[in-house]
């Protein structure tokens, strides 16, 4: 009787786990093919990246892995938005990048209830049409307090190219 239960549990476990294991195996196989098809120059770049990654503190590595998972759970639109935002962010000089990081850090350091309030308001804002969202941002205290240069930067970060005309 006990043996039977054990077999059933094992089968159920394998049934649940096998798609994940298979997916992981497929991912590795895909990566292996990709790795083999890469140019030597690209491989060297990846190796250098790997070396930097390995020397980073465990906490930073965990954060990157977490971000990687988060990204892959996002919708296609969200991914596109973040990619284009990253391209804009990359073009910024070090000082402006630091200023943005500082602003974000300030938000991270807020009390949990305040952070939750922001997330809640963001959720409400997201339900509105995009034009309305842009109008709200333009009217916000945050936007009013930005200087011309910062406004240009946030325009690029918050509104993709095709939305720029809506700001005029």
């Amino acid at each position, binding site marked *: 009787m006990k043996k039977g239960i054990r077999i059933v549990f094992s089968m159920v476990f394998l049934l649940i786990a096998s798609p994940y294991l298979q997916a992981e195996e497929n991912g590795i196989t895909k990566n292996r093919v990709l790795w083999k098809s890469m140019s030597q120059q690209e491989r060297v770049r990846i190796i250098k990246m790997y070396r*930097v990654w390995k020397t980073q503190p465990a906490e930073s590595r965990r954060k990157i*892995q977490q971000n990687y998972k988060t990204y892959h759970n996002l919708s296609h639109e969200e991914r596109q938005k973040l990619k284009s935002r990253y391209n804009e962010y*990359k073009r910024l000089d070090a000082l402006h990048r630091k200023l943005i990081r500082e602003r974000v850090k300030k938000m991270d350091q807020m009390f949990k209830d305040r952070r939750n309030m922001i997330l809640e308001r963001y959720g409400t804002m997201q339900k509105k049409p995009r034009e309305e969202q842009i109008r709200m941002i333009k009217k916000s205290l945050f936007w009013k307090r930005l200087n011309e240069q910062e406004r240009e930067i946030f325009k690029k970060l918050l509104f993709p190219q095709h939305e720029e005309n809506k700001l005029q």
Partner: protein
Amino acid sequence: MNCQWIQDNLSAYMDKELSEAKISAIREHVRNCTGCRTEYERMSQAWNVLNLWAEIEPRPDLRKKILHAVQEEKSSQWLQIMLPAAAVLLMAMSIYIYVGYFHARNDQDMAGQTEGTAVVTEHDLQNVNEDEIITHLELLRDKDFYDTLDTLEKIDYLPLVEEVMQNIEEEQRSSLECSLV
């Protein structure tokens, strides 16, 4: 055995440091040569004056003082060698640390660049855990992007931060005013 040799050896002759044959030769020469005799007499006079001087006993701590002075001289010599050596070592260490730091920075910069301009070396392709790279290949390809992803996501919330902060401040102010009333 000329006059020059005799005069050069007069001092040794007077101190009886020469062989018996040389002593008798010099004695014979001095007796017959006027120049050498004059030189011998001049030297004898000087010798006699020196003998009049009282012998001074050195102070008992003189040896100790001399040895101490020599030791000090030795240690200052050691310092003279060691100080430049230490300075050179310090400089070498600074250069090593600076180069190491520069190299690490350079590596990071290289990793951050999307276009790989590195020279391909066999060494780069060896000594790496290829399996681990393959497992994390997608992540490594866009590492910088994933590194900043949370910041990029939170940019959306920034327009709301100051609004919320102001609301909270206003609420606090009004509640304080109420409590005061």
